[in-house]
């Protein structure tokens, strides 16, 4: 519809959609700077009257807060019972004994490694299925079958398999990387297969006619031509790994932590949910995604539209 005009109604609808999409992010940013007393109020506090960075300090540098309040009160301390919790934002007592850095470090290592592994395996699977009909017609569905039931159904088998009796890789980076890759390979295979399918096979055949081996033809012809698709798939898989909670919960104890599990720990039976601290950690956790998304946006758009127009 080349003649369609952008009417004020369109503008309003777009604005409403934008507000709907942006509001959760606004609320997260706002809450991350709120005082503890403003986290849940009626009527709601839209923007803090006295913004604080204590929520960020709680996750990134809790020692500063701990020093400011003179440590936690323990039995025998002088002036015991006076209460040291300040009215400012941030968590109290037990939550100040550790930062969220181990979770951030774990998420970075695991998500990057598992994404690379998933993309490499998925790409090879996609090419072998698309070009060589590896395993016949059933293989793609067999691979996808791994995602046809809820992850919780395979969580316990993973725990047993990864436990001391068999592989003994629970609570290790390697274990979680393997688990994440295993869970995301069906996605990467199917997404990449669709990009490979759209690429004319004749281009690779021409390369082979010129003397390229299959491996070299795919590496130098197929992969560069579906680069946008690979990048889009990579980002998608990275987001899946970055936000994964269940496997990180059941396959770790103390050595390995990830952001989603750490986020969940800022909740206690007596303190309730530490909304401000959780919002601060959520803010920190989306920054890498925003940066990566910004730099690869050109490829992303190309990748997402690759194959949209049929030959």
């Amino acid at each position, binding site marked *: 519809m080349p003649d369609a005009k952008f009417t004020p109604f369109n503008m309003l609808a777009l604005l409403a959609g934008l507000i709907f999409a942006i509001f959760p992010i606004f609320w997260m940013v706002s809450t991350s700077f709120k005082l503890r*007393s403003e986290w*849940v*109020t*009626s009527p709601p506090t839209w923007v803090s009257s006295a913004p604080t960075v204590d929520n960020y300090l709680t996750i990134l540098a809790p020692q500063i807060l701990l020093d400011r309040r003179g440590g*936690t*009160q*323990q*039995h*025998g301390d002088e002036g*015991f*019972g*006076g*209460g*040291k*919790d*300040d*009215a400012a934002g941030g968590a*109290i*007592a*037990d*939550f*100040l*004994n550790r930062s969220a850095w181990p979770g951030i470090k774990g998420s970075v290592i695991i998500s990057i490694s598992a994404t690379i592994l998933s993309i490499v395996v998925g790409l090879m699977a996609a090419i072998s299925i698309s070009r060589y009909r590896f395993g016949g017609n059933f293989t793609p569905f067999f691979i996808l079958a791994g995602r046809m039931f809820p992850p919780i159904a395979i*969580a*316990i088998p993973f*725990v*047993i398999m990864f*436990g*001391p*009796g068999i592989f003994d890789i*629970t*609570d290790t980076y390697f274990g979680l990387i393997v688990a994440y890759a295993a869970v995301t390979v069906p996605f990467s295979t199917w997404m990449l297969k669709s990009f490979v399918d759209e690429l004319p096979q004749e281009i690779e055949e021409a390369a082979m006619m010129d003397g390229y081996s299959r491996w070299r033809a795919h590496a130098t012809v197929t992969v560069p031509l579906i680069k946008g698709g690979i990048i889009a798939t990579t980002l998608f898989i990275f987001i899946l790994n970055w936000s994964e909670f269940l496997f990180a*919960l*059941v396959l770790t*104890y*103390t050595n390995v932590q990830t952001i989603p*599990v750490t986020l*969940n*720990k*800022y*909740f*206690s*039976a*007596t*303190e*309730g*949910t530490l909304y401000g601290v959780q919002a601060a950690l959520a803010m920190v956790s989306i920054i890498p995604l925003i940066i990566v998304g910004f730099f690869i946006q050109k490829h992303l758009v190309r990748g997402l539209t690759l194959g949209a127009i049929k030959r």
Partner: protein
Amino acid sequence: MSQVEKKEKFLKELYRLWGMHMSRDYKVSRRDLMKGMVSLGLSGTAISMIMRKAPFSVKSAWAAEGGTPEERAINAAKALYANSPKKTVSIMHPSGSGGNMSPFSAEWKALTGFDVELIEVPVTQTHQKGMQEAVAKTGRYDLLLPAPLSLPDYAESGLAQDLTAWVDKYDPELFDGPNKLEYPVSDFGQKYKGKIYGLYCDGDWWLLNYRKDKLAEAGKSPKQKRSVVDTWAEYDQLAADMTDKANDFWGALEYRSPFWNKFHWMTRFQSKGVLYFDKDMKSMAASPESIKTVTDLVNIQEYMPPEQFNYGFTENYAQYYAAGRGFFEFGWPSLWRYSHDVAGAQSIIAGKDANGPTQTGISKVPGDIVNGELIRADVMPFAWDFVVNAHSQIPEAAYLYAQWLTGPTMSMRSIPNEGGYFDPWRNNHFLDPSPEFFEAYPGDFLATSYEAVVDCVPEIILRGGAEYHDTLDRNLQAAYNGDKTPEQAMKDTAKEQDRITRRLGKDTQIEAWRALAAMYPSALQQAAGADKWS
């Protein structure tokens, strides 16, 4: 016969018996055998009876070396250390509770050699992580820290170690002596089907907090010293009287959001002399008493702020009670503790003078008159238990750590610490608190809480407890929101609960339920007729 002759005869007999033992040719007659067996049985019985009646210290010394639960635990753990296949006690604990344990880990190591490793899991995932261990059997945790609601599932799945023998052997002073736990709390949060599976590290029964300054301003006074009102009718009336909507001051701050809402029903309903189920495990949710309870709970919403439908415990407390905008609030011990955290400024009603808190008062929960007697059913939602992992490599050492930390002296030290959940449960906490302990729970709290303990009732601590709770939660919420009438909501609850019972196996559930019902306060058991069930 002279003494010398007697001695000779005795020695001869002894040599004869010894020779009998040594000689291959000698045959013991049936009569001698029977005599021996009977003597042995009578001696055993006599020793057992003597020890049962023996003074506490004698019994303790007999069971294990040491005069206190802590000493016995330390001595036994020290003895175990050398040959222990694992030198660290690993503890799975809910997020935010480390402050009650971490300050004492070095002390335990110095005393016994065992290290302590705290493995924190999100508080909402403790039950699931335990059940995961039940299947995976990794032995990664030696101790777990679940709520009593998890005990049946943990026990039935083989995860929770039966602690009964160790409790007998090491005597953590749970049921006798000045430091014991008062019945029925001593039983229903630690036992399942008659066996001990958990050691409390936290007591969590509800008390009713109220604004005593506002009560005085209104020219009223508490009904009794430890009870601002006696009955639910009085509670409803006072909540109505104290409400001042124009000035945003509300009579009742009850929980009306999912998950939290059911605890009000549990305490109100059972004070009418009816339990969750009848003798044959048929749900009593649709009984007239239950429907009346829900109707009353809906009616009192007129004196509650509208945000109650969204707020949980902490939000409710912070935004209304601590902000000075509400009169009554039911709650856990931490509510009282925070209310008097003057320096913390978490509460604008904080304040105390030489006579104790100036603005807030504490009271036992109201009850109902049943057969001429006032019945209170003070629900204990949550609490936390130490449970020993049956798949641990060092279950006994793990038990001993739990006995040590929950002992009368150690618990007195750990509970008041910051950054934890643990609240008082032993008698010495209430009756003989240390200055630090009293500082953390000032005023009338400890005395009132001690009086209330005898009225405590459990949650539905059965296998599938979370499912029974969930159906109750959903239907109550529908009634509170006006989506269902109280009758319909409770009929649906009963139907769903009966279905859960059938699915889990009616016979085993009946057995567990009767065991739980036998751990109710005796007055409530009698009112419900549960005292005649077995």
